Each structure stands twice: as C-alpha cells, then as structure tokens.
C-alpha cells in the first residue's frame, strides 16, 4: 500500500526506524487535513509545531480557508450599566454555540457555554467586526480603541466625531469607520479608514443613530433606528437609516409594522443586525413582535413571530426592587436568534433562551448576574449583542509588532504563522510604519460572510487604494 514512502511523504527526509507506526502516517494528506481543520484555533497553534508534516499541511492557504468554513460563531454578551459609574463595565461574556454544535458525537446537547473574557474597564463596547472590537473610552471624549480579544492588542483610534459604524468595506476590503458630528444644521457624516488615509465625506443629514453603537452591517449596508436633533423622533417613514458602503450614501426607510402614534414615537422599537440579517423587534404591552428584513431591494419585511411575554413571573423573580411592574417587559432585549431559539435579556431577571416552537423559556446561567454583582445592576443594565460571525479568536497578522496609531496593517486577516513562500508577500513599501518594505506573511482564508469576500479577493488586498 505504501509504495515508495519517500516519494509519498517528502517531508520525511530521514528514514523512520520502524518503531510503533504512528497512525497519522498511514493517512493520506486530504484526511489529515480533514482532521486538523476541525481543531480550534488555539489547538492549531500547538498542532503546527508537532511535526513537519502537520506544519506543512496547516500552513497553507487551502487549510486556512477550510478551517474558516468550519469554525463556530460566538455571541458576545456585554453588560453595561449607566447608573453606577464605578461599574462602567465588566467582562465580556461569550456564548460559544460551537461547544453545542461540536458535540454530536457525545450525543448530549450541552447548554451554550458561557465564558468570560475581560476588557479594560474604562472602555465600553460599541461594536464588533470580524472579531475585532471597537471600544469607546468612557472618561475621555472621542477616544476610541480597536481591540483584538485574542492578542489583547489595542489600537487607539482618535476621532473627532461619534463613531456609529465599524465595518469592512466590500470593495476595498479594508476596515472603515463611519462617524458623525453634530452641527447647527444637522449631522455631518464621514467615512474614515483606520490609518491616516483621507476621509470620505458622506454628507449632512437630519438624523443620527438613536443608540450608541457601531454595527458592522449586513452585506455592506449598515442600519440604525434614528432620532433627530434633541432626540426628536422622525416620522415612521424615516425611522430607519441605511448606509450603503458601496455607494457611500444614506437612505431613510420606514420601519415594519403599523405606524406609531405620533406621541409615542418608535421608542419601543429596536433594530439589530444578527446572523447576517436585519431584525426589528417591538414590545407592545405584553407582546414582542419580531420582523426580519427578507429582501433589501424591495424593503420587504416579514413578521417572524409574536412572542407572548406573559411568562410565569413567580418562577423568575426580580432580583432588583427598583423594577416596577409596568416596566416588566418594556426593556426586554432581543440578543440573538439561532436555531429556533431566541436569546433575550430581561432586565432585573437575567438572560433567557426562548424556544419558538415549544414556546418555553429557560434561564441561561450567567455567573455574573447570579452571583455577587447582581443587585448593583439596576434597571438601566443593558445587554448588547455583538456577534462576530466567525470564531472570535482572530489572530492578528502583524502580531509581532505592537500596533501603533491605527496603522493600515490592521487587516484582521486570519493567519497561522505560515512561511512566506506559501503565501503572497506584501509589496515593498507596504510593511507597517516601523519596517517599511518588510515582507510579512499574510494568511488568506478571510471568509467574512457579511462582506461576501472570498479568500481569493484577499490576495488583492495588498495594493494600496
């Protein structure tokens, strides 16, 4: 079966001495790749050092692509409290859906694993794009940071306006920030890159995003519910603002559902981008209605479901006396929709999973809220979902050099320490500021479903804009 071992396995430059045969040696490359591509990123970092063969198989563009297709995604849950300044924020928690999906062999469906990572406590999280977080420093005005949760690197991004979008531009395949500044006539929007590249003006508009967040968009379009100056609600027909990255233009669209009473505005309505789609949910008395945007071109919304929120309140007692009954459901937040389950945050009571089919709810054990700090979080606690569509463990390409000043080397491209011969090099002059022209290995396989960019397009990322 093995004819000419040295021909089939060229990495074996020395003869093996016929001891106990290693099982892997008997497997063809495609199978070993299949096995290794199922490993988590931190396992891969280790696996690449096991032997020459594993190194040779892992350190390729093909492998990176295959691996990215397999990784699980993660929902990051981030509690933030406005009330008590001491507790600006705490750790980020992420729900690893992969730990559920990866266990079919064991036969048991484990509940979503909840783990936490910590971020600098003086920042709070605005958004997430491809696993990179954008944080705003709460004590300093206009000071933003991009944070890589794996390598712990932080890049300050000083900014004059309020950042309301952090996305990957579908054409140039670079990260961009959308921000606005309030002027007497309205709000002035512009798009910036992360480095010192020139900014692109978008224009002046009457509205700004209602929430302090920086979505990364769905298929190159960002969405927000908006308000005007002094928090005045726009008419229903203009309640949702959409920014198209390709066209560098805004448009204003109506929200789904019935028109709202002029006095109420759409304060009970919220927009979230999740799982590559746009959702709007509204809470009316004891119901939550959820719509999903089915077709962007025709702005067609479809009602996904109506949830009856009249759950047995006795089973889920409030941990906070400040929660009064009429506000029971008002601030409930939709965090995630996945596999027929909704993830809801119920202020004062905790995090819940709601099964759409059986209409049952289940409390998600959340160590933070169950234990000590619970009662310090009052009504204003808001859990924000930021969902990297890929494994949040993104490795940084220029990790060897500490990032300074938002250099354009922050591509967020997936890398596995591959050797330069295997992958395209930077063109000279494109290295980072410290070492211009140094060739850096760049991984490919940056499959970002949102931007619909395949690994092949990443290779074109290198030339300057």
């Amino acid at each position, binding site marked *: 079966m093995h004819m000419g071992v040295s021909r089939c396995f060229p990495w074996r430059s020395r003869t093996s001495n016929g001891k106990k045969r290693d*099982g892997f040696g008997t497997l063809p490359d495609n199978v070993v790749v299949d096995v290794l591509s199922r490993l988590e990123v931190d396992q891969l970092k280790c696996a690449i050092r096991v032997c020459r063969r594993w*190194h040779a198989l892992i350190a390729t563009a093909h492998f990176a692509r295959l691996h990215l297709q397999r990784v699980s995604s993660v929902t990051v849950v981030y509690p933030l409290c406005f009330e008590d300044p001491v507790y600006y924020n705490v750790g980020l928690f992420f729900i690893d859906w992969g730990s559920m999906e990866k266990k079919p062999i064991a036969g048991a469906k484990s509940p979503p694993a909840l783990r936490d990572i910590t971020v600098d406590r003086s920042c709070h999280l605005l958004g997430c794009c491809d696993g990179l977080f954008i944080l705003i420093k709460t004590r300093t005005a206009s000071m933003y940071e991009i944070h890589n949760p794996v390598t712990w690197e932080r890049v300050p991004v000083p900014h004059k306006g309020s950042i309301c979008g952090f996305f990957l531009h579908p054409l140039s395949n670079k990260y961009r920030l959308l921000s606005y500044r309030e002027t007497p006539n309205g709000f002035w929007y512009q798009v910036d890159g992360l480095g010192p590249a020139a900014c692109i003006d978008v224009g002046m508009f009457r509205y700004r995003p209602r929430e302090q967040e920086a979505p990364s968009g769905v298929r190159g379009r960002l969405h927000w519910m908006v308000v005007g100056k002094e928090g005045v609600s726009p008419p229903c027909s203009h309640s949702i603002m959409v920014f198209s990255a390709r066209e560098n233009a805004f448009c204003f669209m109506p929200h789904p559902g019935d028109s709202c009473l002029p006095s109420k505005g759409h304060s009970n309505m919220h927009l979230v981008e999740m799982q590559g789609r746009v959702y709007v949910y509204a809470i009316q008395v004891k119901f939550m209605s959820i719509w999903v945007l089915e077709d962007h071109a025709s702005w067609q919304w479809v009602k996904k479901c109506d949830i009856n929120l009249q759950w047995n309140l006795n089973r889920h007692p409030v941990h906070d006396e400040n929660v009064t009954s009429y506000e029971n459901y008002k601030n409930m937040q939709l965090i995630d929709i996945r596999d027929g389950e909704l993830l809801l945050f119920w202020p004062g009571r905790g995090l819940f999973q709601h099964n759409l089919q059986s209409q049952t709810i289940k409390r998600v054990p959340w160590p933070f809220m169950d234990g000590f700090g619970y009662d310090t979080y009052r009504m204003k606690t808001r859990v924000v979902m930021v969902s990297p569509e890929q494994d949040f463990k993104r490795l940084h390409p220029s990790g060897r050099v500490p990032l300074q000043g938002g250099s354009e080397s922050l591509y967020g491209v997936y890398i596995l320490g591959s050797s330069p011969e295997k992958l395209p090099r930077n063109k000279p002059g494109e290295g980072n500021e410290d070492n211009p022209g140094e060739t850096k290995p760049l991984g490919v396989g940056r499959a970002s479903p949102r931007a619909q960019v395949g690994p092949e397009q990443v290779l074109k990322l290198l030339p300057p804009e």
Partner: protein
Amino acid sequence: MATSRKVTLLSSDGESFEVEQSVAVESITIKDSIEEGSAGNPIPVPKVNSKILAKVIEYCKKHVESAKAEDRVDDEDLVAWDADFVKVDQATLFDLIRAANFLNIKSLLDLTCQTVADMIKGKTPEEKRKTFTIRNDFTPEEEEEVRRENQWAFE
C-alpha cells in the same frame, strides 16, 4: 422500494460478506462500481481487511436502518450509537478512517475524523505527539523558527 438484492463483498484477506445492496451503496466507491457494471461478484474490497470491513458494514447497516425508520426519534439514539461505535483502539480507529476514505462513506469519515480531532487535545506539541506516537522530525533550528513564528499567538 426495498428490493432484497444482495451483494457480496470480499475483504482483502479473502473473507466474504453478504449484504443488502442498499447497505453496500452507502459506499460511493462501491455504488459507482455497481452502476458502471464493473463490480463483479463478489465485489473485491482491497485495502480493507475482514475485521474492519465487518465494522464498516455494521455501521452502514445501522445507518440505513435508521434512515428507513418512520419517525426520526432515533436521531439521539443514533448519535449515542455512533459514539459507542468509535470507542475502539487507535489502530482500529485509523483503519476505519482509511476504509471510510477509500470506500467514500462520508458520514463514517466525518465521525471518525471528528473523533480523532477530539483526541488531539494536549496543551503542548509534545503531548499531542505522545497521543499518536508521532515523531518530532524538526531540527532544533526549525523548531525554534516555528515557535517564534507563532509566538505572538501564545497567551
């Protein structure tokens, strides 16, 4: 729809196994050779000995039966059955992988590859090598280079 057509499979060490055609065609390799008419009877299965072929047939039988079941309640049971199926020694596991790869039985290949992937758990490369008796064939310089390449990714 279920014809009781049977085929005979011949392992590499000369043992014959008679199975329903519906079971045999879980293997795309066998399915193709039957459809092409090049199968012959019995169908030889080189590279797969009787012990492994017996296991593979057991797997295919179980999965074909489960697919036929009217209600899909068996899903969780099947998963549990699969978990038991792969509780074998390493050598057998690798043999099963090779067989599944050669015979082109995707679900079995998935199952066995995932099992091996789950076994690659060690925190250090040395632990990983130990699990599978893999020889470290890096020169000390190469090893240092690879370690440095990935240094920034270490916690």
